[in-house]
């Protein structure tokens, strides 16, 4: 139920809506719950609404951490 997927904003539309794409599949979603969205941003999409922006720097940092957690083994 709480499942959500990361999608990329491809176009900002009026009335707090946006077009997003996921590997070429496009969909119009509501962005009423997030602020300051730009084309190119990634958001967490849940039941037609963007719930949160994905922080690209934190995402990179997590990946680096995941890699280092294993290397030490």
């Amino acid at each position, binding site marked *: *139920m*709480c*499942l*959500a*997927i*990361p999608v*990329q904003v491809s176009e900002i539309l009026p009335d707090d809506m946006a077009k997003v794409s*996921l*590997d070429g599949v496009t969909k119009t979603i*509501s962005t*009423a*719950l*997030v*602020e300051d969205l730009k084309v190119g941003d*990634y958001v*967490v999409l*849940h*039941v*037609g*609404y963007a*719930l*949160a*922006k*994905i*922080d*690209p720097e*934190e*995402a990179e*940092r*997590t*990946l680096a*951490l*995941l*890699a280092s*957690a*294993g*290397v*030490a*083994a």
Partner: protein
Amino acid sequence: MKYVDEYRDGRLAKGIAATIVREADPQRLYHFMEFCGGHTHAISRYGLEDLLPENVRMIHGPGCPVCVLPIARLEMAIECAQRPNVTLCTYGDLMRVPGSHGSSLLKAKAAGADIRMIYSTLDAIRIAEREPNREVVFFAIGFETTTPPTALAIRAAAKKKLANFSILCNHVLTPAAIQSILQSPEVRELGSVRIDGFIGPAHVSTVIGLQPYRFFAEEFQKPVVVAGFEPLDVAQAILMLVRQINEGRHEVENQYVRAVTEFGNEKAQAEVAEVFELRESFEWRGLGQVPYGALRLRPAYQGFDAEKRFALVAKPAEDNPACECGAILRGVKKPRDCKLFGTVCTPDTPMGSCMVSPEGACSAHWTYGRFRETTKAAPQRRSVA
């Protein structure tokens, strides 16, 4: 898919698992509850438990809104859908959940009720606008993740003066459920369920942030690590919990830093607070009455409450007496402890809600876990023969 594939790298997962094996003290037990069905699904699907040492065990929690919905509430929705002129809009997850006496929304639809599966509350609003002569009722269900979209739908309906739109509200709250588990006799006194720490929900936490978990970490001295839903996220969270236990810490840590912040999505919280207020008590399947564990519409929005509009009353409804969903949701039993599991109860013919939802512990175990058991059990059988 960006932000998905890279968090499913099997090579990295093995590396993290090796670190967990090295760091977990063989003299200790590490029993962690993953609250969320999304984590249960990831653990089963990617076989994470096979990578963990024997003394690091995962207990499946009640974080699947479909699973914790009491039958009486489902029956209310079915009754509502059967009223003349009503169109019941629902997320697909609920269609096959068994009610009492073999009923379900799917069967009610087959019998002629106007029940429509929707993807988003935006769809429900659209249907209400397009069909002004129908009473459109949205079967609202879900945790903090799914509540803001319902709140926005109510706000939109109010703004558009949609007199034919209402909701049957079953929104529930995560922190109240965690508290209920920690205070349950099984965990507190009997010691039959051991919980040393929690993996906190991913998307619920994008909305509520880390703040609400601080109370449990301090009051019950249990570490909480909020984690994403991908297998590497879960593996890393387990490692973080192992380290906290080893170091005698009980803190709230954030593994899902790419989407979760300390205070969460305050805009979404404000929308929810505008429309909803706490229910003093609400029944959860498995947990019983949970104080302040659910939401209802505020007086200003009660015109949108389907329970009032259609005078719906929850009638006592019995679960299948042999179904162990309740005990499974509390972590007291495992799916294979249920005699219905895999016999009469399968995802095709579910007897209980934990087998219906893909995030339910029974469904996850049926789809992925039972094969693991077969391969593990095979050598034993040979040795007996």
